[in-house]
């Protein structure tokens, strides 16, 4: 490893269709003193973009079909002499697992010192992971909200149909849920289906 190369800042390209996530990864990397050349969605001529931007390293979302494109650069590169080495060449399987789990992987365009690259990948993995848990929390919140509105709808239908108050409607729904061994939202769904059928 040559010292001069070692001191040059590493230029990074981000390939990710999740714009928010890409932005958060960029923010963290920039804050840590790395240079992010660009963020790209997966479908826009990856090879052309690499030629244009000449990155030292590409961080790519596992959901991008572009991974096969990147892997080709090291072998089909008679016209593009830059070697590409996948970082996961490191023989630590736990490391590959962490990257696959988080959904991100990295390709190096030059022979960079793994010690310099590792913090970048660690950062990306951490950002992808926190995005993942954020996403899960958001999905969960949305699911709860959707369930709540289903229950409300079923209650309103029951109240109208049987001319009962909200408390009674809730009780009816709860009894149905227990009797039929369904969750409350599922019981509400079947009530809605049934009511809508009988209306028609």
């Amino acid at each position, binding site marked *: 490893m040559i010292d001069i190369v070692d001191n040059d800042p590493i230029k990074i390209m981000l390939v990710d269709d999740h714009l928010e996530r890409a932005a958060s990864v960029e923010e963290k990397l920039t804050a840590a003193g790395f240079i992010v050349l660009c963020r790209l969605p997966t*479908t826009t*001529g990856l*090879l052309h973009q690499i030629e244009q931007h000449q990155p030292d390293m590409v961080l790519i979302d*596992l*959901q*991008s*079909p*572009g*991974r*096969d*494109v*990147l*892997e*080709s650069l*090291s*072998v*089909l590169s*008679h*016209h593009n002499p830059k070697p590409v*080495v*996948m970082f*996961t*060449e490191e023989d630590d*399987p736990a490391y*590959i*697992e962490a990257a*696959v*789990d988080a959904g991100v*992987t990295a390709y190096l365009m030059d022979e960079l010192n793994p010690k310099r690259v590792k913090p970048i990948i660690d950062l990306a993995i951490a950002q992808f992971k926190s995005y993942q848990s954020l996403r899960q929390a958001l999905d969960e919140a949305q699911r709860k909200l959707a369930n709540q509105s289903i229950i409300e709808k079923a209650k309103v239908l029951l109240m109208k149909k049987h001319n009962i108050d909200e408390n009674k409607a809730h009780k009816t729904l709860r009894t149905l849920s227990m009797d039929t061994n369904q969750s409350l939202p599922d019981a509400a769904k079947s009530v809605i289906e049934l009511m809508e059928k009988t209306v028609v």
Partner: protein
Amino acid sequence: MNNKMLKKPLPSPEKKEIKLGYMRLSDSAPLILSQELGLFSKYDLTVSLKRDVSWANIRDKVITGALDASQMLAPMPLVTTLGAAGIRAPIITGLALSLNGNGITLSPDLWKKLSNHITNCGSPYFNQRSKEEYLKTNKQITFATVHPFSTHTFLLRFWLKSRGIDPDKDVKIIVLPPEQMVDSIAQGVIDGFCAGEPWNSIAVSYGVGVLAASGSQIWNNATEKVLGVLEDWHLKNPATHLRLRLALMEACEWLADMNNRELAIKVISKPEYLDISEHSLRPSLTGKIAYNRVNDSHDLPNFHVFSKYNAGFPWRSQAELMLKECENLLGKEIEQAKISSISQQCYRTDLYREAARHLNITSPDSDYKTETITDQFSDLNNGINESETPAIRH
């Protein structure tokens, strides 16, 4: 050999819940049909099929255990065991899932230009002079393949060489995801590609591509996709692996009957599987291929081969040929001893034979056969020359 005498009762699976990877391609049919025909359950396995977006992902997920097994490109177990493509891990196969199934599609413009340089009857072939002339007056010709270490790359290189074109010097070869081939050729980003189906048929039906050769016409009955597992996974789960192969072999046998292909098309077309129109899947799977938009379809019943001709057998002769071809891509020689040891380690003919005995299928006696790469494309080229695409004849 008396198969029945060797048949043993099927051992219980070590693992019943299996995650099985596949890609969005017509020749994923065996995996999807195994599921839909209830063959995995017949062998007491609960399989979840996982569609993926890149071969690199499939390889990494098999290595990390996120997938138990997966459809793979035929060279992938060899190259990964060799460690030629970055990551190194021993991956083996005991079953080939399909033979052939690829095509080389050219832009109508490149097809026309090549046809102008026909030097021997009917088929486009450059002689030294016309080639030099052509390359001088034309911009860089770019071809795309779907993965560096794939039959697609090998077929493309064989075909180019047979046309008098040097794949390393005369053209540029890049990799694109199969789903981007049609757009890329339509926009002139590439002049031709070698990909699996339905991407050739889609390019042809949009009129943005002319099918110049099918895989079967270049290297007939080349192993295309295999069932790949980590060697270590096999050692821990030999009975599960056997059951997986048996289910898939039965699905392949079902697919070998052309009468079942329409139903197969209907099933794999569904949104939860390939999510591709039946119309696009039909040509290659029914073996009725149009070379360009205007001419009639031609009969190529072996465009995809499942089960027939011992299609499931992982020929070591093919493994050796593929590794030999990798030398060109890596730009270095692989020792013959290494080629033969990797072929034996990864292409597990013993595992195929074990499964075949259970199904009373006769296996080949040898692990090696003569492989023939053709450079005669009379059938297809006649087909194309009948079309409206003008071909100047001498």
